[in-house]
């Protein structure tokens, strides 16, 4: 199995987990606080398995912690979408919708990969992704087809993030497959599907937005200040 491929999958999950965890104790309602923490935990669980495997394949003695806490931004292979700031709740839900509409078909495909270890991880993560997709789709519909203000915010979120979705569909998951999940949700939410245009990329090659550096600074500071520290 290719190390970069495992890092792409693992870094997407790790950075998504870190962003979702930022909502912890500050979500709009308690049930949502619990939900976002649970989804973050699922992503973190997948990230740990994928990064552990990536470290073993690489063969340079790096474990999950070394890969998560001791790499700089240029070494991360995550897509730009997951590193973008959380914004308001609508932005967070749009990010999760777009991400899970990509992760679900991807993990489903990888679940029958010839690499047994990757197939087992994907087979597990796939079931969790289905819950993430369902949760974000329901919120997108509720907010889009809600009040004038919630509709405006949800549409703004979709418009703002749309360019970053092209990076998701540049590989194994085709644009048509991804749209077949996302478009019906936007339609039911009475939202306008944005026109395709600007398509920023570079995350898979380690070229990121400045947001990732700030995220890593917060995520890595403890481990770097106290190497090997344990609870």
């Amino acid at each position, binding site marked *: 199995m290719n190390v970069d491929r495992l890092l792409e999958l693992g870094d997407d999950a790790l950075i998504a987990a870190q962003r979702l965890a930022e909502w912890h104790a500050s979500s709009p309602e308690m*049930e*949502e606080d*619990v*939900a976002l*923490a*649970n*989804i973050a*935990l*699922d*992503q*973190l*669980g*997948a990230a*740990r*398995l994928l990064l552990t495997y990536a470290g073993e394949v690489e063969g340079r003695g790096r474990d999950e912690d070394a890969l998560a806490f001791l790499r700089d931004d240029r070494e991360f292979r995550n897509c730009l979408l997951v590193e973008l700031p959380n914004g308001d709740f609508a932005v967070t839900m749009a990010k999760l919708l777009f991400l899970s509409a990509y992760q679900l078909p991807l993990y489903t495909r990888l679940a029958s990969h010839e690499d*047994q270890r990757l*197939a*087992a*991880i994907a*087979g*597990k*993560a796939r*079931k*969790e992704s289905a*819950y993430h997709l*369902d*949760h974000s789709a329901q919120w997108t519909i509720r907010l889009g087809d809600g009040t004038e203000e919630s509709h405006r915010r949800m549409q703004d979120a979709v418009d703002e993030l749309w360019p970053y979705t092209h990076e998701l569909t540049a590989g194994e998951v085709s644009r048509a497959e991804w749209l077949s999940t996302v478009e019906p949700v936007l339609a039911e939410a009475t939202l306008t599907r944005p026109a395709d245009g600007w398509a920023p990329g570079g995350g898979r090659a380690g070229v990121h937005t400045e947001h990732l550096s700030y995220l890593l600074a917060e995520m890595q500071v403890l481990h770097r200040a106290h190497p090997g520290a344990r609870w």
Partner: protein
Amino acid sequence: MVSARQAAAAVVDPELRVVTIEELGILRDVSVDEGTGHVTVTITPTYTGCPAMDVIRDDIRTALAAVGHPDAEVRTVFGPPWTTDWISESGRAKLTAAHIAPPHRTGPVALTLSVRCPRCGSPETEQLSRFGSTACKALWRCRACAEPFDHMKAL
């Protein structure tokens, strides 16, 4: 004399303390090397990020040491992925008795069935949140007796 298998099977889940890891279906295998006495226990997580796994591993090693198997190793496997269908009938009964509605049997077709209130038995219930106090549970409420309750999600 308690066998290694019996000792490992009796370990309770740290988050659902009414059921054992065997009843929950996360204990996959226990094998003892007759020559060295080395025990290998294989478990699988309910969810990839389940935070109880470290405690479960420690509890298994402690339980085995207590019955004369100090040399034990706990392995974690992910395939085939855990499903709530592996929860035994006795496990389901114990969950219900602890007022946690057990999961539906999963089938080839995804069906949304009503969840019976584990307190009064009414099917008039509603989901409050798809995510609950642990990764494996959702929060529900009974419309008949008004009690909120946990429901273990079918997976």
